[in-house]
């Protein structure tokens, strides 16, 4: 079963809203790929993704009764997932600022230039080069860069997922790009 409106009948959603965990299991099974895939850009491994994924589904379970069938259910699920990812980023940043005074960016010298013949290695290396700069961005800036450039969503989709206006998404994305460029300059040896 896929996480599509047509594949999640209203009676399954209503049963889950009434507290039927069997129905909720059906929803989780259908949508875990989509929601964990979205969340995977904000973590550094499967274990952290497992924690974040559980957090997302717990939030969905708690908020399920507020779903009024006025928007497609998969969109509502994605919005909850995006909000939970944003909270996760904020919390992580707060913990780091509490326990670490100055986060030293990981040395980039050890990361070789992307191998032209191996797209998989090139993707991994590019992600590792971006990681310290992305981690240093404010959570909302990181969210908008990730949704637009890594998940390759349109401005309209990002606006729908975040609840921000399209112009707000554009302005924030522009500012976030400038910050990201400055951070990359700072972290990369000249």
């Amino acid at each position, binding site marked *: 079963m896929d996480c599509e409106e047509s594949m999640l009948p209203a009676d399954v959603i209503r049963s889950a809203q009434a507290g039927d*965990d069997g129905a*909720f*299991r059906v929803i*989780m*099974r259908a949508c*875990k*790929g989509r929601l*964990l*895939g979205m969340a*995977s*850009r904000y*973590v550094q*491994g*499967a274990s952290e*993704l*497992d924690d974040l*994924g*559980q957090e997302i*589904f*717990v939030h969905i*379970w708690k908020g399920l009764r507020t779903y009024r069938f006025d928007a497609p259910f998969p969109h509502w699920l994605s919005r909850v997932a995006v909000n939970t990812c944003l*909270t996760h980023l904020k*919390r992580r940043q707060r913990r780091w600022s509490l326990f670490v005074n100055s986060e030293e960016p990981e040395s*980039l010298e050890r990361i070789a*230039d*992307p191998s032209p013949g191996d*797209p*998989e290695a*090139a*993707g*991994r*290396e*590019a*992600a590792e*080069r*971006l990681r310290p700069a992305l981690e240093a961005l404010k959570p909302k800036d990181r969210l908008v*860069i990730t949704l637009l*450039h*890594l*998940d*390759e969503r349109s401005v309209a989709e990002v606006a729908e997922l975040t609840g921000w206006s399209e112009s707000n998404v554009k302005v924030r994305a522009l500012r976030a*790009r400038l910050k*990201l*460029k400055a951070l*990359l*300059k700072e972290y*990369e*040896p*000249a």
Partner: protein
Amino acid sequence: MNPPDDDHLDTLLRAAAADSRPAAWTSDAARGIEARVLKRIARPESWSEALLSMTSWRILAAAAAAVVVIGVWSGRNTADVFNEEWLSSHTGAEHEDGLSTTGLDDLEF
């Protein structure tokens, strides 16, 4: 490595979008997550979880509630010190137990 310009940043972002590790993490984390979530929602939330999941306004609200409760409690205690009735009722209890010191002069040794 050159400092990034716009093109460089776009190239880097496009290449990073093709990183295959998040997909691998997704399939690892997806395995059996339904059972872990159902187990989690079946048990009541612990105090530590509740505190960790607090957003800033909740912390402020909890702190404000604590201040009000402590204020009411300590205010009543402070008032009790100046409350003759409260003082006499508490000191009076000692008389009933026969532990009064007022009759010491009458005792014969």
